[in-house]
């Protein structure tokens, strides 16, 4: 009798144990678990004014004035339309009506005025610095009087740092805003947030003001969205494979074939925002000679790298910008592509003659240069291929690897000759950031400081009245920089998103530069 009771108890314990274990997956209806990209792991707050890094949840908690399509064109969001004065000295934004924050506060022109006032305390305040005065014309109309034309204003208003916060609770909550509580107008509300672990979001049922780029005009289809943070790529992949999560927002190239091999998994490819390139230090021998710089740049076989290192996934880079940007659409003669004959001819011309071992020399000095890279394995592999390609035209390079967090300080020494690195940005002002004469060392790894470039740079950065002018000016600056060969473009990766197609239905067409609010509005969970 006693043993029977014991057995029963054991069986019951076993069943509840099994239930507990089975429950860990995301198996409930209209609930989904996403893993955020590894470079966003550890974002400590959802306070867009204070934060220095924000993750994808920010785009779901808050809305912005302007949204961006895949081709980086600008579209309405909380601003229904806008007008720019011909001289660029004022902007009028017409706001959507009936928009409410999560705490019930209304969104109107007054909100914009208060928010932009608060934004002045941000370290990103330069984004709205050109706005001298905010005039509230009526509830749904706001006018910005500018101190100087800012053709980049729409881009800034589409940035997640310019997510519109609720000013009243922002002031009341202080440092807790974005950590314990947060109120935006976005399609999801914050339920819980544990730094570095997970953020649980629940649907905002009142939501009816999505960007027109999303099909869904009502509230989101997903009722509860858990965003997990997993720093280790292999772990994230195993979670997706075992059904513990439904989507990985960033899949490294190494795992793509693994994911494609699984029947229930699918990869969504979006244009990336990265460019891998080889900066050439124009102040270091032998690269003070523009011929040697051009030779080194044209020795890089972009197509071969794309196929052999990245399995054909992504695009070659022939300019310094991602190809989606209008400023990347430059005159073909300035694009930098593989041309070994030209490379060899230039080196011969510059007096570097090929020796018996295939390495060039001039006045008895071999053409030996340093090639810096960072410790991540993907960089190591790419750098080794670059090294082999340089050798093919007779440039002997020696790879030095630095820790990723320390390499920026090494660049500041200015001792680099060649390097392999990459950046992530989707605006033409990145040329100013990496080639501006006042940022030598880092970010200007190429130590490029050219009077003509500086002139074009000033014109591009501050001398444009409107967007069309800005594009023209940046094109001219971009073309000139490329003509001086301070770097060689290599590769543009794509962003790969892995998901479980038995669980999620994604919209047929993606109208956003990355998976964010616009895409998630249209994602459905299979019941």
């Amino acid at each position, binding site marked *: 009798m006693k043993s029977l009771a014991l057995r029963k108890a054991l069986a019951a314990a076993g069943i509840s144990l099994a239930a507990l274990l089975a429950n860990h997956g995301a198996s409930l209806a209209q609930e989904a678990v996403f893993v955020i990209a590894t470079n966003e792991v550890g974002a*400590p707050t959802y306070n867009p004014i204070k934060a220095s890094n924000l993750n994808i949840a920010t785009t779901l908690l808050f809305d912005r004035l302007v949204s961006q399509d895949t081709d980086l064109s600008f579209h309405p969001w909380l601003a229904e339309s806008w007008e720019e004065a011909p001289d660029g000295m004022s902007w009028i934004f017409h706001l959507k009506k009936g928009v409410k924050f999560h705490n019930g506060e209304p969104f109107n022109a007054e909100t914009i005025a208060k928010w932009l006032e608060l934004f002045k305390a941000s370290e990103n305040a330069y984004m709205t610095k050109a706005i001298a005065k905010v005039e509230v014309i009526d509830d749904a109309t706001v006018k910005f009087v500018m101190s100087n034309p800012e053709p980049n204003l729409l881009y800034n208003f589409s940035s997640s740092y310019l997510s519109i916060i609720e000013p009243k609770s922002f002031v009341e909550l202080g440092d807790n805003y974005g950590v314990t509580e947060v109120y935006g107008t976005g399609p999801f509300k914050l339920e819980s947030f544990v730094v*570095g672990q997970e953020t649980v979001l629940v649907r905002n049922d009142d939501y009816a003001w999505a960007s027109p780029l999303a099909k869904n005009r009502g509230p989101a289809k997903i009722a509860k969205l858990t965003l*997990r943070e997993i*720093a280790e790529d292999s772990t994230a992949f195993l979670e997706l494979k075992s059904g513990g999560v439904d989507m990985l927002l960033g899949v490294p190239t190494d795992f793509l074939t693994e994911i494609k091999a699984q029947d229930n998994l699918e990869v969504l490819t979006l244009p990336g925002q990265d460019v891998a390139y080889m900066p050439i230090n124009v102040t270091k021998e032998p690269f003070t000679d523009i011929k040697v710089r051009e030779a080194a740049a044209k020795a890089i076989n972009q197509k071969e790298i794309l196929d052999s290192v990245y399995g054909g996934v992504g695009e070659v880079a022939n300019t310094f910008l991602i190809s989606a940007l209008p400023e990347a659409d430059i005159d073909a003669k300035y694009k930098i592509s593989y041309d070994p004959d030209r490379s060899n001819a230039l080196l011969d011309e510059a007096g570097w003659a090929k020796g018996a071992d295939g390495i060039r020399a001039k006045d008895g000095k071999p053409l030996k240069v340093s090639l810096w890279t960072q410790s991540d394995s993907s960089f190591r592999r790419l750098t080794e291929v670059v090294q082999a390609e340089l050798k093919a035209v007779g440039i002997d390079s020696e790879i030095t690897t630095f820790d990723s*967090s320390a390499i920026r300080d090494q660049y500041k020494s200015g001792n680099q000759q060649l390097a392999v690195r990459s950046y992530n940005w989707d605006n033409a002002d990145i040329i*100013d*950031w990496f080639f501006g004469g006042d940022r030598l060392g880092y970010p200007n790894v190429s130590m490029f400081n050219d009077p003509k470039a500086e002139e074009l740079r000033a014109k591009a950065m501050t001398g444009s009245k409107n967007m069309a002018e800005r594009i023209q000016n940046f094109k001219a600056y971009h073309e000139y920089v490329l003509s001086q060969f301070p770097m060689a473009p290599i590769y543009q990766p794509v962003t790969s998103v892995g998901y479980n197609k038995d669980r999620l239905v994604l919209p047929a067409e993606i109208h956003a530069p990355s998976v964010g609010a616009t895409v998630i509005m249209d994602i459905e969970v299979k019941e």
Partner: protein
Amino acid sequence: MLAYAIRRIFMLVPVFLAVSVIIFLILHLLPGDPIDNLLKVGAPVEQRAEMMARYGLDRPLPVQYAIWLGKLLTGDLGTAIVARRPVADLIGQALPHSLALGGLALLFSSIVGILLGFVAALNRDRFLDRAIMGGVLLGSPLPSFWLGLLLILAFSVQLGWFPVSGARNWSSLVLPVLTIGLGGTALVARITRVSMIDIASRDFVMLLHAKGLSPLRIQLRHVLRHALIPVVTILALRIGWILGGAVTVEVVFARPGLGTLLIKALNQHDYPVVQASLLMLAMAVMLGTLFGDLLQAAIDPRVRGALA
């Protein structure tokens, strides 16, 4: 005993100061600074100097150290430069997870290790002894992040028993605890075994046998008890070691904790967070040693006498 404890605690003060200097210096001598992680593309050039001044990074190192130590002594760990939150909050969120993981791993390696060592010693030089010692030896040198991934593959992906990662419920603790615990088991088992064999050859054990006590009783009540003294010392030393060893395991299993916090902060050069995390780990080692010494003194009067 009390006098011994007080003296032993006072000895921690110079150690603490030395550790704080080393932590501070190592970090600030590393190339790179947190400002690079704060500046956004498009930020004006002057902003760099402005921010250096705002966070006091433009002052001489000894001054920065004095300010940090002064605040530390009043219990203020400062505010994270990149993470923008009070460091005490970040540590407060991370520490319970690390303690739970470390504590359970320590418990696991103590129980399993002592048990295996005991069984091995009883079967000295026989097959079971060789099998156990060979087995634990195989387990100990495996890198923990690799062992962790293997365990995930076997128990989560293939068998589906435990979640792959996270820290939602107790079942997500099983694999990380095993990963850290298995490494420590080997050491504990070996020390238990050697120490038991050593004690078993002592005269007083011979006497107990002569008195006709049952061999199992002798082993359990007398030999094991004496043999545990070195084991306890080793275990206490491992308290800090286990917290530090959990760093990579936390990252592999995507668990919150000091390790994940430390690695993220190191990559961003977030000085206040790294300093505080390292200090916590160093304190764990110091307190572990202290605890081990006190425990040993409590068990063994000879130790108390030596310092007195």
